[in-house]
């Protein structure tokens, strides 16, 4: 049975698992952004928090993904549903690039612009939303891009705990010693990652072009 043959005969399942995969990685990245960007902003405002926050996110990043899924399995509410657990773990992985890029993006805004803004009578809030975040947006989107691509990759492993996604084909193919089945999971996952990377890359370039106009 060729790869194409497998895809065509199982197209309904390929589609289902791809959608499931997108949901896992998408929701996880969204949560990572909702938590990570404000955290990144917070540590530019409260510098003494920057080391512990960045350090913790760094440590999380070093835990092997399979082990992280395993560790979380006994957790109360989380362990009950595999999808829930997978999204939580993936969101944890996505935190570091988002926190770090938000922090770096804001910290590298030209200080003379901040001083000009402050001298013009902008409040801290106005300075953040009108000057710092727009100028940091390219770097923040770069962090989002890393988080999303990472999430799509690691999500394949979520199938090991029964969370579904394209990893199911990979694990099934491994069990069956059938490369066609492995590829039926691996190739769509890779294409997904490439597509997201390209799209967010375009957005990043646009935003940087605006930020660089100095």
């Amino acid at each position: 049975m060729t790869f194409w043959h497998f895809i065509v005969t199982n197209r309904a399942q390929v589609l289902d698992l791809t959608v499931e995969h997108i949901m896992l990685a998408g929701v996880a990245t969204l949560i990572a952004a909702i938590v990570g960007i404000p955290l990144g902003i917070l540590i530019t405002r409260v510098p003494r928090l920057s080391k512990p926050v960045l350090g913790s996110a760094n440590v999380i990043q070093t835990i092997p993904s399979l082990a992280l899924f395993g560790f979380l399995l006994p957790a109360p509410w989380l362990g009950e549903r595999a999808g829930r657990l997978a999204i939580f773990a993936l969101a944890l992985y996505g935190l570091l690039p988002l926190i770090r890029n938000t922090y770096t993006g804001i910290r590298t805004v030209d200080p003379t612009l901040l001083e000009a803004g402050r001298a013009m009578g902008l409040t801290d809030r106005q300075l953040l939303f009108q000057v710092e975040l727009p100028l940091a947006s390219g770097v923040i989107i770069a962090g989002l891009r890393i988080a999303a691509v990472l999430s799509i990759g690691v999500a394949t492993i979520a199938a090991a705990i029964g969370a579904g996604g394209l990893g199911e084909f990979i694990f099934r193919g491994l069990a069956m010693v059938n490369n066609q089945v492995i590829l039926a999971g691996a190739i769509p996952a890779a294409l997904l990652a490439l597509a997201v990377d390209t799209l967010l890359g375009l957005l990043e370039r646009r935003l940087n072009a605006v930020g660089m106009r100095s």
Partner: protein
Amino acid sequence: MTDLASRGPAIEFDQASFRLNGRPILNEISLSVQPGETVVLLGRSGSGKTSALKLINGLQLPTSGEVRVNGRRTQDWDPIELRRGIGYVIQEGGLFPHYTIERNISLVPRIEGWDEKRVQDRVRELLAMVRLSDDVSSRYPSELSGGQRQRVGIARALAADPPILIMDEAFGALDPITRSEMQKEFLELRQRMRKAVIFVTHDLREALLVGDRIALLEEGRLIANLTPGEFEDSQNSIVRAYMEAFSDPAAVRRWA
């Protein structure tokens, strides 16, 4: 903001000292600027000029003595309200690169909640005032020359018609020809504005040209507070050193 334009000096340093981490930066400065008057703060790098400006807009507070803006001590002002009443021009304009010229100029009026028509009218009026054509308004700062950016910087500072204007080495980054054009235009503009202006520079020629009075700072002390004529005739040794430095190219090199 009209309440700012009251009687008495617009800016008044009263025995104001400022220390930073225990290091004296400014030492018992007394100086006042009346509405309509331009006072040049002249001095070398590190003489305390920038700190003096920060005392005016409340970015720093005096360690002792007082700085009063329109009769009120800077620590008694709401800092945001204080700063919105002070136009601030820096080198290269300090324009926000991600905003068009129109957005840059209209930033404070928009924050202050002006309606769109009033904002547009004001932007057009200001562009004319600094001699820029209307079609720059949709461009970004990177698409303008240094001189044009500087003009936009002035327009932005004047947007909400503040009674006080601070020019912080505003023309310092411009080539000599553009610089001298800007100085002349500033003189014309000043006639029409009747604002209290603090003009910071280390260029004596510029100081003599634009100042009603020149306040010379040296190591945090106010050495002289003189009209340009008096300044040129002064026998004070530091003033003389300044005059000589600018008349003798070799001495300029020693001072640099």
